[in-house]
């Protein structure tokens, strides 16, 4: 086995981990498995792509559209990413307003809300296919050469950037949740929403913050995946199983757990691709999921479940 699987796994795991964090937060605070989360990744990528389409021409016109340093993209992408994150947040808040929030207020069972998310997922996916067609799209056509990064491993500058960005985001989020008063409120709602209200916390506000964080990270993960692989309407749906596997492996509600779970799934996939064959990649998350549910259903850092 070549050491390259390590870096390949970490790169794939970064995307999975970022996506799984949103999933685990929604699960622990809204108490349902959100099947639309994968589509938030895809929508994040497409929304960012759309903005970058407008912006690209503009920046090129201004003569500042060239790629940044060793990377395959120019200023357009980071700026579009911020806009894409904001738009993805609006999408999820809108969806919560018209769908999930309504069910919640009516006191619907979790299973009803899960089913609703399943339906919304199909609708969101079809809408992407309708608007953007099923053909893959790309943020950039620039080719990147993988560079030696030591120990016989290679990675492109874009890949290294996504890994670095993931590390920064996860650490920042972890500090936010463990140190800030908003994070404390999130932990309170996740333990007992009724009591959180009694303590004076506005649970609806905490739910909004959760959507905002989950959607923003989903957009980043979608854009990273789109940058390193490609953008397709089904990209989020295809990531759904790895996302769930990572969130459950890490222990529902745990941010470091979801990230670690993502990395483990990513590594397991990379090893499988190299040892068994690329066609088995999609089955890896499934196998991990089944193993976790049998051996340690509460996950690595799990407290509840």
């Amino acid at each position: 086995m070549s050491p390259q699987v390590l870096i390949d796994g970490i790169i794939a795991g970064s995307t999975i981990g970022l996506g799984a964090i949103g999933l685990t937060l929604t699960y622990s605070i809204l108490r349902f498995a959100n099947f639309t989360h994968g589509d938030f990744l895809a929508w994040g990528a497409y929304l960012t792509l759309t903005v970058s389409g407008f912006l690209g021409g503009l920046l090129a016109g201004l003569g500042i559209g060239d790629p940044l340093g060793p990377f395959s993209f120019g200023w357009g992408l980071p700026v579009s990413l911020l806009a894409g994150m904001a738009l993805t947040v609006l999408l999820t808040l809108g969806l919560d307003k018209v769908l999930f929030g309504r069910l919640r207020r009516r006191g619907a069972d979790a299973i009803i809300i899960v089913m609703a998310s399943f339906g919304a997922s199909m609708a969101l996916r079809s809408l992407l296919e309708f608007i953007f067609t099923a053909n893959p799209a790309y943020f950039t056509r620039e080719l990147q050469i993988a560079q030696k990064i030591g120990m016989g491993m290679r990675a492109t500058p874009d890949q290294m950037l996504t890994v670095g960005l993931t590390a920064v985001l996860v650490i920042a989020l972890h500090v936010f949740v463990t140190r800030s008063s908003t994070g404390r409120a999130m932990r309170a709602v996740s333990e007992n929403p009724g009591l959180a209200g009694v303590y004076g916390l506005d649970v609806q506000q905490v739910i909004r913050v959760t959507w905002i964080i989950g959607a923003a990270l989903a957009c980043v993960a979608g854009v990273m995946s789109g940058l390193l692989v490609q953008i397709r309407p089904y990209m989020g749906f295809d990531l759904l199983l790895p996302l769930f596997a990572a969130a459950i492996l890490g222990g529902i509600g745990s941010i470091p757990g979801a990230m670690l779970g993502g990395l483990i799934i990513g590594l397991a996939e990379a090893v499988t691709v190299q040892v068994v064959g690329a066609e088995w990649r999609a089955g890896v998350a499934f196998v991990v999921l089944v193993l976790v549910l049998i051996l340690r259903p509460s996950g690595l850092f799990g407290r509840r479940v």
Partner: protein
Amino acid sequence: MSLLRLRDFSAGYETDLPIVKHVDMDISRGEAVCILGPNGAGKSTLIKAIAGQVRCLGGSVHLADDDITNAPSHALARRGLGFVPQTENIFTQMTIRENMQIAAELLPKARRADQMQRLFDMFPDLKARPNTLAGALSGGQRQMLAAARALLTVPEVLILDEPSAGLSPKLVGQVFETLRQIRAAGVTLVLVEQNVRAALDLTERAVVLVDGRLAHDGPTDVLRDGKLLGELFLGSRHAEVVA
């Protein structure tokens, strides 16, 4: 004018199944009232509904001049209604200090540190180990933390659901000692209790709830010999409203 005013108040978990039925009640500022009744009478349901944890199905509640019928719990907490549920009344996965900090956020920034210090001084058991997970506390200490959390925000009225339930006699004594201090500080107190004797000693007025309805409302002394209370609990006497 009364501080807490219930009119034709009904509440329950399902729309067509009221548990608490047509209750009228007035509690004045500074008063201490205990709510008694057999198991399943709807005592917890009544105060949970006042605190926004169970839906009000009819009638109204007012806190001073504000209509708080079906107001969300967090708004009530901010409005000065302190509530301590019967069970699961602290965040077990957080430290004692974090439990206090969450509540402290209802206060203006400048007052938070002082007020927390004041409450810790009142509960030395908690003060000794602020970084302990609340889940690691004993039953009595948990009730202390729950009460301290509610008091931290200086509520106009404090509603407690069986704070002495499941505690050893010694701890029951401690809890009631704490309640006596709270009472002495002039906080309006509404207390649901099974520990009738201690509750009657602490409060000046008792409300008896039987099968979701008000069966008695009056000064505690008339209930002290236990005969009337026994009759009320068994349902052989109804709606004797002395107030």
